[in-house]
């Protein structure tokens, strides 16, 4: 089989051997929820970090604030 066979293309330009109905190939509509809006306070975040230590984001912000990146996984 050539490497280009058995590939499924989606509207975002992704090719993958997984069919578009598979979990990781479903994408939200354009107006999907993106959480708190500009001007709103975000929920409290107290979670363990990579060493297991609890981090309270509100207590750990810099003098000007912080950047919080939500991502799907470190590994995929």
């Amino acid at each position, binding site marked *: 089989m050539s490497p280009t066979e058995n590939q499924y293309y989606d509207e*975002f*330009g992704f090719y993958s051997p997984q069919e578009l109905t598979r979990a990781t190939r479903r*994408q939200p509509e354009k107006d999907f929820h993106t959480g708190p809006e500009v001007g709103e306070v975000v929920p409290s975040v107290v979670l363990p970090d990579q060493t297991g230590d609890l981090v309270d984001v509100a207590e750990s912000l810099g003098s000007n604030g912080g950047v*919080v990146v*939500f991502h799907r996984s*470190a590994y995929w």
Partner: protein
Amino acid sequence: MTQLVQLQGIKENLEEAGYSLFAISNDPVEILGEFAVKHDITFPLLSDSDSTVIRAFGIMNELIRPDEGRSMRWYGIPYPGTYYLDANMIVTDKDFHQHHARRASGASVLARALGEEMEVHSEAESVSVSGQIEVAIGLSEPALQLEVVSQLLIDIEIPEGLHAYASGAPDQFARLSVEVGADGIRTGDVSWPASESMKTLGVDEAVPVYKGRIRVSLPITVTSDVIRLGHEIPETLQVSVTVDFQLCDDDECFLPERIQATLICALDRLVEPEGLSTYAERVEAIEAQTGRPVR
């Protein structure tokens, strides 16, 4: 994952400017610990393993069912995005991506956090000079990476005493426009700087124009098309940029001109490919070792 490695690269710049950096996923602590050691990540990779915080933000990907992709922990992942917070946890800006595999580059995050213009990376710069105008094209990163949204930066230097026409100028003037093309890329909307208004030749009303140096930018992403094109990821990608414009001074207009430039963009190797099987194997190994489920 590539984005976390890029974010590590801007951590110090953010901290110097008074911002701290956090990443949140539903990965278990053990997976994050292993990744952090392997890739020298020193900012907090927070583990929201039961997606409590992701749900509290209202950004859990609800298209994935609880029974899907269990070893990969697909269920519970957030929609990918970035919040910029002030010191009181108030959102000052945010940026979300509809596709969960797409994410903002480190340089994009830094520029957005600091509200600064992005620096052109000299390794990815190309200058093209026509008779009167100088155009420099660059990238926000030294190289493009698959599915990471970088910025293509186009700096246009209009000589003193001359102006170019901006969007909204009457049809008799050729307005400044930018076209970008390449196989295997997607680009987003062009961001134009604010134009000035001026009275110009033969037009009663003020017309929007650009003067001096202007910065035009647009998001650029290498898609998985590049893999399919050559069956493996090429080392570089050729991006062509066409700039159309018409210059005028106070007395006369010159003919419309076109500058074409080519930017050879390096394509970085990805952190991702090792990930998929490694992840599933590690989840299973941790479970066997600890006797408790991490999925």
